[in-house]
């Protein structure tokens, strides 16, 4: 992604020359991004406040154009302007996808504890009133933020493990979930079908949502050093595995907002801090090696671990 605005280009150079690993990662993500076409880049540069800060513009773009203010917002992620990142193939609707949702905000908002929801889920009453109340609360989340998901088939072993939550957090690159020492963070594993997503997307098509799924680009979330863009000729995007250099990375996709049903909530768990720390530069470089190998593009991206302080 090459900025046409000199102020943004200058800021990008600043980020990429930083020895602070997260800043370097933020800059690299823009530099290596190949799925943001000129049209989307121009829209990105034109929108928001002219602050000359890539990260401020990214945050504003995410808030206003990806998430949006209104429930009926169509994220730019799924519109024609994001043509290069739309996921075009028709994938089988009858396959499961999974997603991790943090529960802490919603539990606070309904005045419930993790124990309440854990008990409700364990009891096996899928129509449980508390689960329904929790889902109602999720529906009130403003805008229509796209959801990051993975295919269940690729994480089925992790899901079955006793430490399933930590495993999924690591494999899905969710490094921003990092509880402090002694802090507990509650999560739910959501599981549903591709066809559930397609069903919710169909009415949106006439309103400009070209596809239900998209590849995540650097513009699809707040700045994250745990995101890594993929070469455009790779048929998939991959989540950055935070910890394990040996296993295969898993595919990550974005889909349009869906309305959860009670049966979508499969299980809940807690992460308790401190978690083993993540070496950002090393994790990114491992991921890059894999992308280069799988994509056949030795020139893609650039390693960073030797240039930053960790």
């Amino acid at each position, binding site marked *: 992604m090459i900025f046409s605005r000199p102020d943004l280009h200058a800021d990008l150079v600043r980020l990429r020359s930083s020895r602070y690993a997260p800043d370097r990662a933020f800059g690299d993500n823009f530099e290596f991004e190949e799925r943001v076409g000129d049209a989307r880049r121009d829209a990105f540069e034109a929108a928001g406040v002219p602050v000359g800060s890539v990260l401020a513009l990214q945050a504003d773009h995410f808030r206003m154009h990806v998430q949006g203010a*209104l429930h009926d917002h169509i994220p730019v992620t799924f519109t024609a302007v994001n043509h290069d990142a739309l996921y075009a193939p028709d994938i089988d609707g009858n396959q499961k996808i999974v997603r991790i949702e943090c529960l802490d905000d919603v539990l606070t908002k309904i005045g419930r504890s993790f124990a309440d929801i854990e008990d409700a889920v364990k009891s096996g009453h899928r129509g449980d009133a508390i689960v329904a109340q929790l889902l109602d609360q999720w529906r009130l989340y403003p805008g229509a933020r796209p959801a990051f998901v993975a295919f269940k088939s690729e994480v089925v072993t992790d899901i079955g493990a006793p430490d399933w939550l930590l495993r999924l957090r690591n494999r899905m690159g969710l490094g921003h979930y990092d509880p402090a020492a002694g802090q507990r963070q509650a999560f739910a594993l959501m599981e549903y079908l591709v066809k559930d997503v397609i069903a919710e997307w169909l009415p949106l098509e006439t309103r400009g949502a070209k596809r239900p799924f998209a590849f995540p680009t650097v513009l699809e979330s707040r700045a994250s050093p745990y995101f890594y863009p993929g070469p455009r000729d790779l048929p998939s995007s991959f989540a950055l595995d935070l910890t394990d250099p040996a296993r295969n990375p898993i595919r990550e996709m974005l889909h349009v907002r869906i309305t959860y049903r009670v049966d979508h909530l499969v299980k809940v768990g807690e992460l308790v801090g401190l978690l083993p720390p993540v070496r950002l530069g090393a994790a990114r470089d491992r991921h890059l090696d894999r992308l280069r190998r799988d994509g056949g593009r030795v020139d893609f991206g650039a390693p960073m671990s030797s240039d930053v302080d960790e």
Partner: protein
Amino acid sequence: MDAVISTAPRRHQWLDQLIATPAAEVRALTEGTASIHPFGRAEPSDAAATILFGLGPEDPAVKAFDQGTLEVFVQYRTATVRVDRWQRDRIALTALDLMTVVQRVAPHNTVIDLHRRFAYWNAWAETLVVDRGLDLRREYWRSLSLTQDIAGEAGLASRRLLPFWLSICSEAGLRGRYDESYLTVGLLGLRSLPLGEEAANEEAALHGLARWADAQRPAKTRFLREWHVLAGAFPRDATFWAELVTRVLTSVEEEIARQTTRARRTFPAAEWWREELNIVTGRRVRSRGHHLEPPPRERLREVLADIDARLPFHMIVPRLEPLIQGHERYATGTGDTFYVVRTACNIGMRLLREGADLASRASAARELGRLAVNFEPTNVYAWALWRDALAWEGHLEAAEFVGWESIRLFPENPQWRNQLALLLGDQLDRPREAEELLHDCVRLFPYDPVPRTQLASLLASRLNRPEEAESILREAISLFPDDLSTNIIARYQLASILRRAPTRSTEAKGVLAEAQRIERAHPGVASALRQRSDRPPVMIPKNTKTPHASANVPEDTIELGKSRRALFRMRNASPKSREAINLEFKKYLEKGEYPGYNYYVAAAVGLVTPATDDAIIATAFLAAEREGSAGALDRLLGRVEGVDAVVINLACASRGDKDAALRLQSWMEEPANDLSPRDHGLRAIAARTTSPLPADFVGDMLAASLGMSLVA
């Protein structure tokens, strides 16, 4: 797994930046640009909760976070004034994120400020109700509900928000002012009331649930779901619940029967609830045998008897005070507020009617009125008592603003205008303003004879314009041939006017004879009229400018009343005086007080240009009206529900929109929400309106939901 090289600092380095520049860093956190690795992608609430986790209240970072949060709220509030839609949405999203942060980490001083300055914060939050998800008002109220303990520890009356939560519950749904998502907030507020002497808040929460079920008529499964969630939060045995639910249902059903003159005695959910708990209908409420019992009815009868016996007020006080305190304690402890309101209104009205020592009685009645309004902010008797007692006590200016505030809150009911006109014309000696108010009332409620006869009386007795009065009375007699009261009153008034002219005494006698003939033919009507005219004597005001402080009326009530009066004056000003009045209001508007309602006032008189996508429905309506297309109103209808949707359908139906008429008809066929004066007022308008509703009236009805002065 990587070799573990600990890079996670125990204390996040961002905290130093936070301490150096609190507001800038809190703003950066909320807006997604803070240097908070690894939490950059996290929700601001999750990031804040993690970074601040384990820090004590005296930690400089915790204090800085608190200071910064409050400052950023003020910055957002200031920036919200008259911004375009994009900027509004931007502020709404970030402010909502910050409100969620408050819910999670409860920064101490910020929380107390959000509680203390309710009107200030609420007036801003209600301008950012953008859609069901992006609703800053709901999240602000949720923040209050979650932090009541902190406010209580800071010295605010610990259970003062109980009536507020109850009213939210009853208004949460398709038949209320708020969407159904507010029910969770109302019930959470009740569950989270600071306990003090109480063991738990299950009874208050049951009252909230019962009020919601009566007012909003949920489906059975929906009701039972809420009941099961609530019951699950309080592990109790079935006997306990049966006892308590019986108590709650009995109280609510008693109030319904009273409000509907026994036309309705229960509501559908009561039956489902009884089925669930195997409660036999008619089961009696057993005494609890502890402090949470309402004072016995005999105590009320004794006080009323004392008043009727015209005992000196100081002899009434020893029975009156403990009675009211007992009711207040019961209501605050249980959530059963009906008794205290009923008792306060009964005694207050009686105090204004009977006995000597008027100043003390009026003062006591004023406090009873205020108490009743606090417990039931939509109780029309309570508002009337409060206003009248203030006037009797000589706080005429405060009484006037309470009068304007009640017109603002209940625009559908003509009686507030009529009653304020009496105050303006008689006691405040501003008959011309009273005349304008009554003309306005005649215009808005052409089917109501009362403002006409009252206007005629004012014209004849205070403004020396008997010819106009005569014309209005003759018109009233011809317009309302079947309204016996009007026929009698108008004829008596007409006869009195005619008698003044010596040449028309025969005519006067004829009119009088006709009035007497009707009275004789309908003795019941005549008797009712005599009772109604048995009004208390009018006090001569000691001072029309008594300081508000001595009247104990909240400043916010005064200010909102002032804004409503300014709207009235600007609408009715002569071209000569309009400019000066408008300029004065414009200056007031720029101060940013009550940004929701004052923006509406400014839009209604053309001082600002509203937009159809305004978050404030009342101003969006004005913009749609100015646009003039049916599509504009349809789009607006797509955004609203509850009472606001009824108002817009009413407006459209009155202009011949058949679809709106059908929607309105189906609403009219639903059972009324008997405890809501607005529901009643709207039904009266829907049943009797035969001409297009004026746009200013519709706007006022939509704006009635804005501004809230009595919570805090």
